[in-house]
């Protein structure tokens, strides 16, 4: 799967040939192979599009982007057609304007238009397009009957009545994530997006990563919402409602309130959650630090013992289901440490309940996640080590933004407030969990200390940062050369796991420790993040987390005083018997047909 960025880079390797053409009579010099769409953009001309997305290979499905090339008989798609030498392209001729308007009229004649009650109202690419083109009449009769909405998945809802069949979801699921849960079926007027078995997303190999929801231009794919359930808990005086927010939230919640992508809003977020009347505002970053100590200790012990190497990270639930479905033979390599969300859930109903003297059945544990797979993770049968469902409700970044807007809370105007004790304090190592490579970097900072008893001096491990699909590094820990690898996006994870599986089959794998995140870019690119986030935006949000890391007084998980306190008061030491019971888990083998657990 190549995205445009990579295509440009590849082209950059070849000797460039510059050509000349004209767009709207303006002369332009362009690299051979540049599409009309991209060339026009450099002149400040935005040709309207609908199915096209900068991260995906253009398929030409909608026909909205047509332009007129002087001398050619029919109109031409700007998103799929490379500009040619000597062409004069018209993007706004009378013929182009009326034709693209009519294409949009055709598309909406097959669309369930109830914008006012639609999840995408105000954020919808089709709505914006219709507004920009000045569509005022509905010319054609609707010809399809209402189809049932797919609510079989605990993470994602699919409404085929809103689907414009652009195919982005299929492309993302197949090419970027290589899960192949979604597919086109039937043909002609009957064409639909569905799962292979047709039994709904909840009965498919879908790993709940939610990337399809981020790329869908309309309201056809979205999270299975828990907003109402959380309002109910907040309004119930008998409940003590606690909340945790994942590292990645603070880098993008601001976007939903008109702030620059990548603005850091950690303090404002804590304040806003207090105003929503959560009884305690904690931070998942606290348990991210704890995860590093549990997982880091596990890594160090396994490396010392040479047991089941490489160790693979376990904090991304999309990755975990993917591994259980496609690489169940690698289960023993995956760290048993629960994800920070689930560690928090357990501790909120055990440690925190005890410290505060609150009955655990009164506690409602809510998490704010950049992720739709976290909804699935919270509902896994085995996630009940506190004696209750450890995490009750998971809200995505988008859902939290909706709640804040409904409550009239303006994030921009919030003061900066810290999270509450004892589950709120965090270090820079925790905050970078949200970007690809972050868990690896955080783990190495502490693993170095665990092995040598000395602190790693240079804390910035740059070779594992950035948006390259697969990254590798070699770190010298007192003479032991640790070889680590990082993959983000499940297609990249698949390539890495194929390599690991092949090496293991031959006896030994070259890596000691591997980080995998299901979503491209890591959690900053998660399936619960604001709509329409492309790779460029994900990179900016990643930078924000590294900035927060740099600015924090403590940047190593093992320095976190609250983490030290919980070990002293409650858990004993990392990887202790008690932590094993509360903070570690196990994995299953799953069917590639319906995603359900199967016997080994």
């Amino acid at each position, binding site marked *: 799967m190549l995205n445009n960025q990579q295509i440009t880079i590849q082209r950059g390797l070849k000797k460039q040939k510059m050509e000349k053409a004209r767009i709207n009579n303006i002369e332009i010099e362009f690299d051979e192979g540049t599409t009309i769409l991209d060339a026009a953009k450099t002149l400040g001309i935005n040709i309207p599009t609908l199915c096209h997305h900068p991260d995906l290979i253009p398929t030409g499905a909608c026909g909205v982007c047509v332009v007129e090339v002087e001398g050619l008989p*029919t109109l031409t798609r700007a998103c799929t057609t490379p500009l040619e030498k000597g062409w004069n392209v018209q993007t706004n001729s009378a013929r182009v304007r009326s034709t693209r308007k009519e294409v949009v009229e055709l598309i909406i004649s097959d669309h369930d238009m109830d914008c006012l009650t639609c999840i995408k109202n105000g954020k919808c690419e089709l709505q914006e397009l219709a507004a920009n083109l000045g569509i005022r009449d509905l010319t054609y009769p609707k*010809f399809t009957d209402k189809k049932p909405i797919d609510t079989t998945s605990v993470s994602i809802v699919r409404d085929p009545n809103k689907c414009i069949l652009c195919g982005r979801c299929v492309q993302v699921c197949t090419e970027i994530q290589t899960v192949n849960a979604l597919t086109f079926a039937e043909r*002609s007027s009957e064409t639909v997006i569905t799962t292979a078995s047709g039994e709904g997303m909840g009965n498919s190999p879908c790993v709940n990563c939610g990337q399809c929801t981020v790329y869908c231009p309309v309201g056809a794919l979205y999270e299975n919402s828990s907003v109402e359930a959380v309002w109910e808990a907040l309004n119930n005086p008998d409940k003590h409602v606690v909340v945790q927010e994942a590292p990645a939230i603070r880098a993008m919640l601001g976007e939903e309130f008109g702030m620059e992508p990548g603005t850091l809003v950690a303090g404002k977020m804590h304040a806003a959650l207090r105003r929503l009347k959560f009884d305690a505002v904690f931070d998942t970053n606290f348990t991210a630090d704890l995860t590093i100590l549990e997982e880091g200790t596990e890594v160090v012990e396994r490396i010392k013992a040479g047991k089941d190497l490489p160790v693979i990270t376990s904090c991304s639930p999309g990755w975990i289901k993917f591994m259980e479905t496609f690489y169940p033979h690698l289960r023993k390599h995956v760290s048993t440490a629960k994800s920070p969300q689930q560690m928090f859930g357990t501790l909120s109903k055990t440690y925190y309940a005890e410290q505060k003297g609150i009955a655990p059945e009164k506690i409602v544990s809510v998490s704010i996640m950049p992720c739709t797979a976290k909804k699935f993770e919270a509902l896994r049968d085995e996630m009940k080590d506190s004696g209750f469902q450890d995490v009750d409700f998971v809200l995505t970044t988008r859902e939290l933004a909706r709640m804040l807007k409904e409550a009239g809370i303006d994030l921009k105007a919030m003061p900066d407030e810290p999270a509450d004790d004892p589950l709120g304090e965090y270090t820079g190592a925790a905050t970078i969990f949200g970007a690809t490579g972050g868990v690896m970097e955080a783990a190495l900072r502490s693993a170095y200390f665990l092995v040598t008893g000395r602190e790693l001096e240079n804390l910035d491990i740059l070779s594992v940062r950035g948006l390259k699909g697969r990254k590798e590094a070699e770190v010298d820990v007192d003479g032991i050369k640790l070889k680590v690898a990082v993959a983000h996006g499940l297609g990249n994870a698949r390539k890495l796991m194929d390599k690991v599986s092949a090496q293991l089959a031959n006896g030994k794998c070259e890596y000691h420790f591997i980080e995998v995140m299901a979503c491209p870019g890591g959690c900053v690119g998660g399936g619960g993040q604001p709509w329409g986030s492309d790779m460029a935006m994900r990179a900016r949000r990643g930078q924000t987390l590294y900035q927060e890391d740099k600015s924090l007084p403590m940047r190593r998980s093992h320095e976190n005083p609250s983490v030290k306190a919980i070990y002293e008061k409650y858990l004993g030491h990392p990887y202790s018997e008690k932590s094993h019971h509360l903070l570690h888990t196990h994995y299953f083998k799953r069917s590639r047909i319906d995603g359900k657990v199967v016997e080994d």
Partner: protein
Amino acid sequence: MSKDTVLKKYASLVMDEDADVVDVLQSVLHYYNRESCGHCAPCRVGTSLLVKIIDRLASFEGERDNLDQLLKISKVMRDTSFCPVGQAPYSPISSALKNFQDQLLQHVK
């Protein structure tokens, strides 16, 4: 039916001299609707609408507007469909409208 009427490109259709043009168009447009692979919106939605309209005309329930709609839709399809299937209906529709407008009008309510 006059000999230069283009009813089906890339395919031939044998018909009676006094076949009703609406019946012929109905069969042709249903054919293209069946052949549409569904990949691109102009052809998928366009052929669906075309059969809906021609079915109405065939049962004498059409309106005057429907004739313009047939032409307008098939023209957008010609200009924006991804492959020849979606580009095809324009020729039979425009030539039927040119050569057999009377017959078509008889089908309007």
